[in-house]
């Protein structure tokens, strides 16, 4: 046991003496969570639109005014005729165009129908759908308002309550994802690199001939990173609540315990990567390609799992990040207790054991 602690101490020296890496390890998550927390959002604000208003009467001008007053849209340019539409889209500045045919007001009040056309740049389908939705709602309200001058019969008033997130802040959606992503990558990459580094530099051989059993070597290498990653998790949590106003409705102890569990999962994943790669370069590429993109895309971090085709939706189940995001959201936003999150917890624990099991089987104590 004493040997083991000496070994762990050696690892700590390694880490603390490399100031630059240490700075990166702690500075990086802080900068990233601030940047992403504010910048990754799909709330639409001030989307640039082009207006082709062929009537230019009082009512059509007010309609445009309504769109910009909502804050969702900002008029980028007024077009004169249909031919300019294509060019405006191609220059890449505008996201949507609204075409109001001539005699808008007259059509509305006398012919009882004044059509309007919305053209969206569906090169980005997400934004296009959202913009069309907003515009439709605004025009609908405007229509109601014009009608109110003559008091409509049979009105259905729908009141809406947005649960858990009344302001519909996308922060609540993205911050748990950002926290997970950073924690996973830092932990998994750190371990995979530190172990392959010994291999690449040849010092692994020295460790292997030492009296420490291989299991202890791995465990000793990972020990310091458990601590570092946990500190990272604390920092990230503190920032999530402090800066972005994420509530912690559930138990803080449970939340921290889940963080430790996830850190362990990520580290064991890192160990697994290190057993199947031999150089830092491949270990890094494997962590990047194998972890980063799938985590961003398949964990439900940005793209909802429900919209994925079935096989992929099933595949998301093997992403540790997905389960941790569920746990975070449930505990922080909904105030869930262990009886609500036992399933994801169990899955994460199972994954950790599985990764460790495979790594131990794969770990070669002999030289090639």
């Amino acid at each position: 046991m004493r040997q083991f602690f000496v070994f762990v101490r050696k690892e700590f020296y390694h880490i603390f003496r490399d100031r630059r890496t240490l700075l990166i390890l702690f500075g990086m998550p802080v900068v990233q969570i601030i940047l992403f927390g504010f910048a990754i959002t799909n709330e639409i604000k001030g989307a640039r639109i082009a207006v082709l208003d062929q009537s230019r009467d009082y009512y059509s001008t007010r309609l445009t005014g309504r769109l910009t007053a909502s804050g969702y849209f900002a008029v980028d340019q007024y077009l004169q005729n249909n031919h300019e539409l294509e060019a405006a889209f191609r220059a890449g500045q505008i996201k949507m165009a609204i075409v109001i045919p001539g005699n808008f007001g007259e059509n509305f009040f006398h012919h009882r129908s004044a059509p309007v056309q919305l053209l969206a740049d569906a090169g980005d389908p997400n934004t296009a759908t959202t913009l069309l939705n907003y515009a439709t709602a605004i025009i609908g309200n405007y229509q109601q308002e014009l009608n109110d001058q003559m008091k409509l019969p049979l009105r259905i008033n729908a009141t809406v309550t947005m649960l858990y997130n009344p302001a519909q802040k996308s922060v609540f959606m993205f911050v748990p994802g950002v926290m997970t992503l950073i924690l996973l990558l830092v932990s998994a990459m750190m371990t995979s690199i530190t172990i392959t580094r010994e291999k690449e530099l040849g010092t692994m051989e020295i460790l292997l001939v030492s009296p420490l059993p291989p299991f202890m070597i791995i465990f000793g290498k990972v020990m310091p990173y458990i601590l570092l990653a946990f500190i990272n998790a604390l920092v990230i949590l503190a920032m999530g609540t402090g800066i972005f106003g994420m509530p912690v409705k559930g138990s803080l102890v449970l939340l921290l315990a889940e963080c430790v569990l996830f850190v362990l999962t990520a580290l064991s994943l890192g160990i697994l990567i290190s057993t199947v790669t031999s150089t830092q370069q491949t270990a890094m590429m494997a962590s990047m390609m194998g972890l980063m993109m799938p985590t961003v895309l398949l964990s439900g971090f940005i793209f909802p799992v429900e919209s994925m085709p079935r096989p992929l939706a099933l595949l998301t189940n093997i992403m540790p990040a997905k389960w941790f995001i569920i746990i975070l959201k449930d505990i922080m936003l909904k105030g869930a207790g262990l009886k609500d999150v036992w399933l994801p917890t169990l899955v994460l624990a199972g994954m950790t054991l599985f990764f460790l099991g495979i790594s131990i089987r794969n770990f070669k104590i002999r030289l090639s």
Partner: protein
Amino acid sequence: MRTILFLLQKEFLQIFRSRAMLRIILIVPVVQLLLLSYAANYEIKNIAIDVIDQDLSPWSRQLVNKLTASGYFRLHRQTFNTKDAWNDIATDRADLILVIPPHFERDLVKDDEAQLQLLVNAINGSKAGIAYGYAASIIRDFNQQVRLSWLALDKRNGPPVIPITYSNWYNERLDYKVFMVPGILVVLVTMIGAFLSGMNIVKEKEIGTIEQLNVTPIRKYQFILGKLIPFWVVAIFELAFGLLIGTLVFRLPIVGNIALVFLFAAVYLWVMLGMGLLISTFTDTQQQAMFIAWFFVIIFMLMSGLFTPVESMPHWAQVITWFNPIAYFVKVIRMVMLKGSGWEHIRTYLYIMLAFALVMNSIAILNYRKRA
């Protein structure tokens, strides 16, 4: 010139002899494109809805039918028990609850006014907004329908309306793959450019072989070119390979001139390679180099408009994207491939890229010392 050729030969040999590298270069892009393009889908349909219909009148049933028939909503549960419905929301089984109060129909006829309540799970704010938008417009339609039928009016003497027609340009079927595939290509190319080049140089430092290179008569620029060109070639190859898969598997439309994409990529890669080189000049270990490169690339990537629109960012973050090479490439590749934008539209971006490449590489070369 001959020296560079030899250096290139050495580098290519090193790349091709490493099985893992080959695997990364050839297999990873295929897997990523195939898997991830299907995953990146924001489309919102099948919104699970719980209905608490306490009225059970013909009109309230009509409304429920209209909602479920719209294709956006899937009826998850119809119940009188409010608790059940709340429980569904808490466990994510339902996204939305519609409460139709008792005497809905009676109120509507007698008081000319009736209330409905919608409860939306808003953890995903934008999804909640869209779900509510769909529901509200269906309710509005229903209202109009009820009004016309009850008052026995037809369209001509009913209240006036503003009918809206839509068209989705450049991607009529709202196919998300068309949007994502070009972006994922950018990511692939970037990873090769920014990571492999820098790490390759640091590797020589770490293993100590750089000293051997330093004592040879190889000139500084020859060494740097010898290190960068192979990855430039590999990355361009990746782009072509990815485009091929994109067009074959996803029927990715290429509206504009594909040569423009390659031209832009060629310049863009020098920016990324320069960045890798710059990082390699002030790091000693691959771990450091990798973390720094990763730090910048993930920031560049997530803030590039690849996944979430740049326009949604706060203004200060948009200013940061002016210095984000990935943002330019994502924008240009989408403009050219989806909208057919031409030289005159992307020209400015290309000049910006050239400036970046120059600055980045000059700093890196000035910083590079042929000393241990």
